[in-house]
């Protein structure tokens, strides 16, 4: 093997390494540092979990796995609220402040969002 061949192999190896480290950067390293998505399951007439701790600016996604429609409304005044969430549908919202919420269709269902600041 000549010196030139060795250099070429080395160059290719570095390029491959650079390319792969670039792609891991793009796909998985950057996102978790920014806003996160957390899931709350609506099932058995409960928000699961009913209390969730998130970082400022994170998104909560509610997934209705129940048998009837629900909504997500600011407790108790409904100053913000989702549309009706039918079974198998989802609703998502970004939160900057802690808040409690409820289902205005079934007011027995309540949940709490706590923000890490």
């Amino acid at each position: 093997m000549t010196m030139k061949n060795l250099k070429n192999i080395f160059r290719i190896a570095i390029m491959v390494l650079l390319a792969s480290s670039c792609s891991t950067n793009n796909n998985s390293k950057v996102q978790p540092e920014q806003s996160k998505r957390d899931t709350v399951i609506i099932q058995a007439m409960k928000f699961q979990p009913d209390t969730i701790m998130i970082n400022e600016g994170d998104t909560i996604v509610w997934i209705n796995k129940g048998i009837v429609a629900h909504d997500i409304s600011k407790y108790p005044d409904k100053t913000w609220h989702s549309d009706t969430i039918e079974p198998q549908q989802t609703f998502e919202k970004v939160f900057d402040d802690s808040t409690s919420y409820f289902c205005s269709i079934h007011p027995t269902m309540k949940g709490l969002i706590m923000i890490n600041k």
Partner: protein
Amino acid sequence: MMYTIRSLGKWMGGIAGLLILSAPVTMAQTSNKLTDPEIASVAVTANQIDVNYGKIALKKTKNADILKFANTMIKDHNNIISQAVALATKLKVTPKTNATTQSLLDGEKTTTTMLNSKKGSAFNKAYIDNEVAYHQAVINAVKTVLIPDAQNAELKGLLQSVMPLLESHLEMAKNMAAKF
């Protein structure tokens, strides 16, 4: 209100009484149970009756809280009916009318007459009190008769998944009844 399990359980008492007088114990044990097609019929009928009560309320009240509650009952109980029918279709179970179905329908007739005879705030109170009593009776029947008797696992599962919804409706109705 004198509802509770009596209207739902009347037929059972009747049948049990007959069997004690005339039939051997082994027969009483097997005949006492509801079959899956009978359970499907009871489930659909029980839900349809609360839809019908809700429709009476939509016609007779102007109270915003009662209207909202009635609309939720109509939507939720129709939803349960759709799922019960879908499951029955999937399992090739044809709902079979039986003594419990008939007893439910008899109770509905009496209650409908009573509700239709009332107006204004008297209607609102009668409607919401009946919703408390009716949900309590249905919960008792689902818990003590329908779930234990159901043979098919998916049917049992559907009945179990309906329980939290009925419990929530009962709590909502009780909270409202306190205000009327």
